[in-house]
């Protein structure tokens, strides 16, 4: 469904992604783990279409060239990005925002727009998923929300938008265990045979709640290893030190204790 081939991204002279390969099939959940500064968030923004990067390589979603699309066209194509730092938008009502978003992608897909009353039913269902109260919809988007509320609002948006591919960027950062449980519950409820997810995280903790089908280790702009969820457990025990140290060496294979690189390109 998602095909990423030799993806590069740079800001000015600074090369951040250095040739990234990834294939995500329908219904699969892929975890991308890596140390700070490895390019995890850049990868997410490259998929969502943020301006400011020099992008190279190929990214297709169901065969369509994603890199040629505006962020809004990507959303209409089925990409949803859960932000690590959801943006506060004072003065814009959350309910109005959600309905505008949903109707924008419906319009772009040639579907009929949804009326205020029908939308309320959609929103209510989504709110139950992330245990939100009605007053959440009456507030301005993320304005004055706590860290946990902002992240829950992201999952609420995902539930309303019903994307084909969700890219969740450090959705677990800054959450206490109760908020993490609620958010993971929401994400798990949205898993389905036609919906794929890329879950980006620094810590294995999130993967105790959202069980991935595949785990990839991203270091210095490349996926250096791929495996099943046991790879995450290995990282939990050993950290990223193996990969980071090896990267500083002239000969990577000389690094001690480095696991065998599987899918590194």
């Amino acid at each position, binding site marked *: 469904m998602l095909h990423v081939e030799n993806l590069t991204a740079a800001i000015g002279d600074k090369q951040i992604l250095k040739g990234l390969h990834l294939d995500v099939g329908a219904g699969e959940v892929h975890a991308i783990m890596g140390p700070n500064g490895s390019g995890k968030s850049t990868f997410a923004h490259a998929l*969502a279409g*943020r301006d400011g990067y020099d992008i190279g390589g190929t990214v297709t979603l169901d065969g369509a060239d994603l890199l040629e699309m505006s*962020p809004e066209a990507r*959303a209409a194509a089925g990409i949803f990005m859960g932000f690590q730092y959801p*943006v506060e*938008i004072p003065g814009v009502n959350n309910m109005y*925002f959600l309905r*505008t978003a949903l109707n*924008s992608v419906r319009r772009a897909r040639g579907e009929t727009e949804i009326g205020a009353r029908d939308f309320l039913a959609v929103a209510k269902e989504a709110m139950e998923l992330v245990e939100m109260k009605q007053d959440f919809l009456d507030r301005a988007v993320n304005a004055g929300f706590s860290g946990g509320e902002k992240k829950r609002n992201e999952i609420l*948006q995902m539930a309303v938008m019903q994307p084909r591919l969700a890219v969740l960027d450090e959705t677990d950062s800054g959450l206490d265990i109760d908020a993490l449980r609620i958010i993971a519950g929401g994400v798990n409820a949205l898993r389905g045979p036609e919906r794929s997810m890329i879950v980006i995280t620094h810590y294995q903790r999130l993967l105790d709640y959202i069980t991935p089908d595949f785990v990839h280790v991203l270091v210095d702009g490349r996926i250096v290893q791929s495996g099943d969820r046991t790879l995450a457990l290995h990282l939990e025990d050993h950290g990223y030190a193996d990969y980071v140290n090896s990267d500083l060496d002239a000969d990577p294979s000389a690094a001690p204790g480095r696991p065998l690189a599987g899918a590194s390109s």
Partner: protein
Amino acid sequence: MTTSTAAATSPHGAIELLDSVIRPTRRDEAWRYAPHRQLDALTFGPSVAVDLPADLDEQIPALDGPRVVVVNGIVDPVRSHFVTPHGLHVASLADVSESQPGLADRHVDGAELVDAFTAYNLAYATDGAVIVVDAGVDVATPIHVVDVVVPGAATNTSSTGVVIHIGAGSSATVVETRLGAGNDSGGSNVRTTITLGDDATLEHIVVQDLPANQVHLSRVEAVQGERSTLRTRSFNLGASYGRLAYRVELAGVGAHAELSGLFFGAGEQTLDQQITVVHRAKDCTSRQLFRGVLDDASTGVFNGGIDVCPGADGTDAEQSNDNLLLSNRAEVNTQPRLEILADEVACKHGATVGQLDDTALYYLRTRGINAEEARRLLINGFADEVVDDVSIETLRDWITRRLGHDHD
């Protein structure tokens, strides 16, 4: 510019003064950013009646309740509704000048000739609206004053007077809509005086939406009694040069004034707010909250003053002006003026100038909202902080609709 107090100036006396009146120049701080060529092209004189263009009716916000429609400085009795509930009196200024000259005189007596245009208004604004609320009356429905200019051959600028008095313990809402019609350039010059009795409350809204080839000059002067509350909301939207000047005097102990405003410019508009709040009595509070949105090559001006007089101890005054520039040719000039001559005074002021937040735009676009719509959402979100202050739903909707389409 002439600055003098004309005690007991009658309209006639003011006309004699006009010979000595000099129009403001760029050297006058309060007129620094005004388009002086356009101002110099304005001509003033006695009001001349014309018919209200039919299509203008649709532009007027449809509010229920009493309404005074003033066309070229003359009240149009056909389009006005003077029927009022008990305790509220709405009439034309020309009628009141004859029947209750004392009331009309209060409008001009002791008027400060702050500039030439005030002098012209005192001389020529012989008609307009008078709104009086007796003591102890709560008026539920808003009272609407609609001022329309249709620039004519003799003079191209209309002069209108509005008198508002809210009796002790009473409350009311007055909406003043200022519009223009016709293809000729010109403008309107409206002066409003407000007196609030002790414990009175007034919400006073000005919506300025003249065509882009006209000039609007507005001056609101308010004097507040003890523990009274004045809430002004101004929407400076139309005209090539739209000037909304306020002078609010907190004369009674414990009075509260809240002035909010939105100026929303495009094209080559200049939208000018000149605000002065005078704390004359003890323990008064005042708040100024103004927001500007400037697109294209438009200019915004916020000149906000807080004067704390000797003896006005316990003053609590705040002022803020936040601006959003949508184009690199747009500009805003924001200046606080604080003069504090009393003790135990709390004064705060702040101003910001910013652009649309790129990260917020991106965030909205990742939700499928196209760039133009995302821009509009952010702009309206910024403006709504002021628009939401308007308690009349039909007017709020009218303003929102007006902000929705671009100004040509």
